[in-house]
């Protein structure tokens, strides 16, 4: 497993892509979830009781940064199908959507635009934020292990 990761991330392009995905996803999710504020001053803040949300965001960003470049490697170098790529993108989007539509600007924009339908969707994503993030993490973990298995077979790497 580690050999496969070494092969992929020894390539600077995939390493850079991974760093970009992790940092951008982490920053955006932390801003949306109000762990980071940019105005009127830059400040970071983890309210008591929100530690689990912070940990799940970190895991989600880390897994996305791992799984998306791995699947791109598979597609580019092995000319393989894009099926597993869909799983990683889907997991990342599902995880990001949860909690984004709370009482902040995104939730307000959704409710203002879509009315009661938006309010129902916002309430659902807020109420089930933690379970949705856990499901997204599970999707990414499944995608990670199936990708590793697939790369082992296709690359014929022997351990």
């Amino acid at each position, binding site marked *: 497993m580690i050999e496969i990761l070494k092969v992929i991330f020894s390539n600077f392009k995939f390493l850079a892509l991974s760093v970009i995905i992790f940092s951008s996803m982490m920053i955006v999710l932390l801003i949306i979830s109000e762990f980071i*504020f940019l105005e009127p001053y830059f400040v970071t803040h983890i309210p008591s009781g929100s530690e689990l949300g912070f940990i799940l965001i970190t895991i989600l960003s880390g897994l996305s940064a791992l799984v998306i470049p791995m699947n791109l490697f598979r597609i580019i170098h092995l000319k393989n199908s894009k099926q597993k790529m869909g799983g990683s993108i889907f997991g990342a989007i599902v995880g990001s959507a949860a909690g984004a539509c709370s009482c902040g600007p995104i939730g307000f924009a959704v409710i203002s635009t879509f009315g009661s339908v938006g*309010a129902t969707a916002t309430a659902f994503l*807020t109420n089930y934020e933690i379970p949705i993030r856990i499901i997204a993490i599970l999707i990414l973990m499944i995608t990670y292990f199936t990708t590793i298995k697939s790369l082992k077979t296709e690359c014929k790497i022997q351990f």
Partner: protein
Amino acid sequence: MNKKSGILGVVVISIIVVIVASMSSSTDETFDVEMTRTHGSISTGMGSPLLGDPLAPVTIVEFGDYQCHQCYNWFHDTKPMIMRDYIETGKVNLVFVDFAFLGRDSPKAAQATYCADDQSMYWEYHNSLYTSQESKIDNGWASSERLKAFAFNLNLDMDSFNECLDSEKYSKRVQYNSQQARDNGVRGTPGFFIVGSDYEQQQIGGAQPFSVFKRILDSMI
């Protein structure tokens, strides 16, 4: 002669009717200084009573929704320190203005606070809502029955409270407050305006930590 006296009588009666009508009208629409209260660009007259010293040089205007979990976070994490260091020391006062947009129970919860205010228990009721808030929106924790139960726990006169809540007496007041939020560019809850005595106004979005409020408040006092 009779015709003239008849016309005169009608005129006199008309004048009396107009005077009585205008007197009764002025009695009904008693001019209330609080209704015209503003802080900076915000009309806060329909919001909460002022918390703290009315003569304090700085006012925090909080826009909030009783079902918003970030408002809950701010209420429990940041507000106690603002109370201790600024409000209880007379440096700052606070007014809460409803921005009830999150769910169907949000406007009702906001209306209930004004029903409690009729019995001079606004802040006690406000505090009990933020203490009792559950993490799920519209799951029934702020239903009419629960709102009445909160009032009962505060020993409010239940006949008066129930009549007020069921009649939606303060529906328009809450709508007006929510419109104030939109008009002032609030795009989520909690949203704050810190207004100084020289009408200097600083907006803060979200449940930001005490350090941010301290920095701004210290610069204005």
